[in-house]
C-alpha cells in the first residue's frame, strides 16, 4: 500500500534559523490558476502544502488515462523528494536536498519525487498479484493442485486488494492545497516502512520460493494473503498516525496580527509546526478581518510626531555617544508636555460621530431604495411583460439613489478600495434575487469582513513565510512561538497547552434541598 507521502520541500524563503540549507525559491501550487509558468505561480497564494498523497496505485488503464488527461496530474501524486527516500535525519535531509537543489532544478525534483512515489505505489500494489502469478507462469506443471482452498484465498486476496484500493483512495487521494517547507515526518516514515516491508517480503519470496521452486502452491498463496493483510494493517497505522492523532485537541494557539493586534484562539491537536501553521492560515482567511493599510496611517503619524522636534546637540566635543543620545531623547520626549492624548480622544470621538451619521443616512437611503422594487408573482408576469426587469436591471435601476450615501460611508470607514461599483451592483442583484432585506444587503459594507470575502487582488497576504526557532517538523510544545510573515504584516502564534483538568464527582440527593425562613419579627408588649 502506498502511503500518503507528501514531501514537497520547496518552501517559501527561509523556514527556520537553525542554519539549515536555504531553499532558493518557492513554488506556488494553486490548482485554479494555470499551472507551471515558471514564476507565474509566485503571485498566487503559495503556501500550499501538497497534502495529498494521491499516487496511482493500480497499474490498470483507467487510472493511467485519468492521469494523462488531468493536466495537473503531477499534483495529485505524492511527491517524494530524494531526501525522504534516503534518510530521515534532519541533517541528512538538509544536506541531500542541498545537493539535489544544486544539481537539479526544482521542477525536476518535483517530478522525480512524483515518479518515485508512483513507482513505489505500483510496485506495492502489484506485489501480491505477482506472488500468486509467478509460480503459475514459471513452473506450472510442478505445482500441487490446490482446489477450493486456493480459490477461496484468491477471492479473499481480490477483495482485500479492492478494500485497500478504496481505503487509500478515500484517505490519501486529495488535491494539494499547500506548499510546505519540509517533508512530513510521519509520511516519510510510513513510506520507508512500506518500502522496507515489501522489500523484505520480496527477498524472502525470491530466496525461498523462486530459487527453490516450491511446489506447495497453497503456501505461496497464503504468503501472498499475509502480505495483503499486513498492508491493510499498515493502512490502519497510516490512518491513526496521519489522521486520528491530530484530532484530539491538546493545544490552544493564540494568533495575533502584528499591525492592529487582532487576535484569535484556536484548538489544535498534536501537529508539527508547519501543519499548525497551515491550520492557522486556513483559519486566518475566514476569521480575521481583512488587512486594511488605510487604517494604520493615523497611529503612524502620531508616532512620528512624538519624537519629532527634538534635536540633540553635542556640546562636549566630537565624541559620538549614540546610546547616550537616544536615551536623552527618550527622556526629553517623556518629559515634554504634549497633548497628543487629547488630540487622540477628540479625534476618535469625532470620527465615531461622523461614522454613525453616515451610517444612518446610508441605512435610510438603502431602505428607501429597496421599497421601489417589487417582486412579480408568476401570474402577474404575464400581465405586464413590458415593464419586467431581471435582477441586474433592477439593481441598476435602484443603485443611483443609494450610491452616494454608500460611497460616502465607505470613504469614511476607509473601505472604498475594497468595493468597486461592479461588485456592488453584483451584490445588489444577488440580494434582490434572494429576497434579502436592506439590512442583509448592507451587512457586507457596514463592517469589514474576513479576507475571503474580498477580491483576491486586495488581499495583501498571499505568500507566507514561516519563521520559527524550532525545526518546523517538530511537534507543538507548550510555549513555542512562531511567526507567519507576509509582506505587509505578520501573525505571531503563541502555543499553550490545554491544562490538565481534574474533575471530581459529587452526588446531591434531590431530597436534600431544604430551606428555612429568615425571620425578623418585632412584637410590642
Amino acid at each position, binding site marked *: 500500500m502506498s502511503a500518503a507521502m507528501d514531501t514537497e520541500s520547496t518552501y517559501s524563503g527561509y523556514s527556520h534559523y537553525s542554519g539549515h540549507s536555504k531553499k532558493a525559491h518557492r513554488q506556488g501550487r494553486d490548482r485554479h490558476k494555470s499551472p507551471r509558468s515558471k514564476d507565474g505561480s509566485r503571485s498566487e497564494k503559495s503556501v500550499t502544502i501538497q497534502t495529498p498523497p494521491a499516487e496511482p496505485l493500480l497499474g490498470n488503464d483507467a487510472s493511467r488515462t485519468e492521469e494523462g488527461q488531468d493536466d495537473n496530474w503531477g499534483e495529485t501524486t505524492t511527491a517524494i523528494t530524494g531526501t525522504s527516500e534516503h534518510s530521515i535525519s534532519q541533517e541528512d535531509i538538509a544536506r541531500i536536498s542541498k545537493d539535489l537543489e544544486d544539481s537539479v532544478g526544482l521542477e525536476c525534483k518535483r517530478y522525480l519525487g512524483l515518479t518515485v512515489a508512483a513507482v513505489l505505489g505500483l510496485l506495492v500494489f502489484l506485489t501480491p498479484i505477482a506472488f500468486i502469478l509467478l509460480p503459475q507462469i514459471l513452473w506450472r506443471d510442478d505445482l500441487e493442485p490446490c482446489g477450493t482452498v486456493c480459490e477461496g484465498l484468491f477471492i479473499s486476496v481480490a477483495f482485500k486488494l479492492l478494500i485497500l484500493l478504496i481505503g487509500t483512495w478515500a484517505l490519501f487521494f486529495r488535491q494539494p492545497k499547500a506548499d510546505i517547507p519540509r517533508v512530513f515526518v510521519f509520511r516519510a516514515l510510513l513510506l520507508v516502512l512500506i518500502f522496507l516491508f515489501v522489500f523484505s517480503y520480496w527477498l524472502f519470496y525470491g530466496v525461498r520460493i523462486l530459487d527453490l521452486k516450491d511446489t506447495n502452491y497453497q503456501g505461496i498463496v497464503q504468503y501472498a494473503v499475509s502480505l495483503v493483510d499486513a498492508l491493510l494493517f499498515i493502512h490502519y497505522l497510516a490512518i491513526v498516525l496521519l489522521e486520528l492523532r491530530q484530532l484530539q485537541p491538546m493545544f490552544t494557539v493564540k494568533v495575533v496580527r502584528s499591525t492592529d493586534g487582532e487576535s484569535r484562539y484556536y484548538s489544535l491537536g498534536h501537529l508539527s509546526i508547519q501543519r499548525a501553521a497551515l491550520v492557522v492560515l486556513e483559519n486566518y482567511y475566514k476569521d480575521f478581518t481583512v488587512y486594511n493599510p488605510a487604517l494604520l496611517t493615523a497611529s503612524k503619524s502620531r508616532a512620528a510626531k512624538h519624537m519629532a522636534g527634538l534635536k540633540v546637540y553635542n556640546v562636549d566635543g566630537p565624541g559620538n555617544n549614540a546610546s547616550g543620545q537616544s536615551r536623552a531623547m527618550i527622556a526629553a520626549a517623556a518629559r515634554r508636555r504634549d497633548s497628543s492624548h487629547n488630540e487622540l480622544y477628540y479625534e476618535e470621538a469625532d470620527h465615531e460621530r461622523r461614522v454613525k451619521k453616515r451610517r444612518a443616512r446610508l441605512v435610510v437611503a438603502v431602505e428607501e431604495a429597496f421599497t421601489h422594487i417589487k417582486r412579480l408573482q408568476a401570474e402577474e408576469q404575464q400581465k405586464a411583460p413590458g415593464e419586467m426587469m431581471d435582477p441586474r436591471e433592477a439593481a441598476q435601476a435602484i443603485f443611483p439613489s443609494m450610491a452616494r450615501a454608500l460611497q460616502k460611508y465607505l470613504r469614511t470607514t476607509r473601505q472604498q478600495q475594497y468595493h468597486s461599483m461592479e461588485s456592488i451592483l453584483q451584490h445588489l442583484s444577488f440580494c434582490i434575487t434572494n429576497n434579502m432585506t436592506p439590512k442583509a444587503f448592507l451587512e457586507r459594507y457596514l463592517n469589514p469582513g474576513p479576507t475571503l470575502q474580498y477580491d483576491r487582488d486586495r488581499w495583501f497576504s498571499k505568500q507566507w513565510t514561516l519563521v520559527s526557532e524550532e525545526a518546523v517538523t517538530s511537534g507543538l510544545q507548550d510555549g513555542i512561538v512562531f511567526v507567519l510573515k507576509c509582506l505587509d504584516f505578520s501573525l505571531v502564534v503563541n502555543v499553550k497547552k490545554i491544562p490538565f483538568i481534574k474533575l471530581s464527582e459529587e452526588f446531591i440527593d434531590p431530597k436534600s434541598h431544604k430551606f428555612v425562613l429568615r425571620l425578623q419579627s418585632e412584637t410590642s*408588649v
Partner: protein
Amino acid sequence: CYFIFFSFQQRIEIHKLRQGDNLILGFSIGGGIDQDPTQNPFSEDKTDKGIYVTRVTEGGPAEVAGLQIGDKIMQVNGWDMTMVTHDQARKRLTKRNEEVVRLLVTRQSLQKAVQQSMMS
C-alpha cells in the same frame, strides 16, 4: 482621650399599665432563637440570639422604669431569656396574672475615659 465599651447589668422593675382589657409594658422586643440574628441592629455579636428591646414608647411604664432601647433582656421574673423563642419571650412578658415584671437587662455603655487623669 479614648472610648471604652463595657456592659453592665441592671435590674429594672416595670409596673404594667392597664389599658382596657390588656396590661401593657410599653416597649417592643426583637430576637429569639428562631429569628435571624444577623438583622439585629443592637447586638454587638451578630450571632447573639437573645431578646433585645427594639422600641420604647414615650411615657410608657418601661421608659419610666428606666428601660432603654438596645437593652438585652437576660431574665424576666427569674425566667431565663437568653435561649427562648420569640413567642416564648412574648408570653413570659405578657402573663395576665402578673402586674409587675422584674427584668435583668444588659446594657452597653459608652464611657469616655479621660487620659490626663490616668496619666497624672
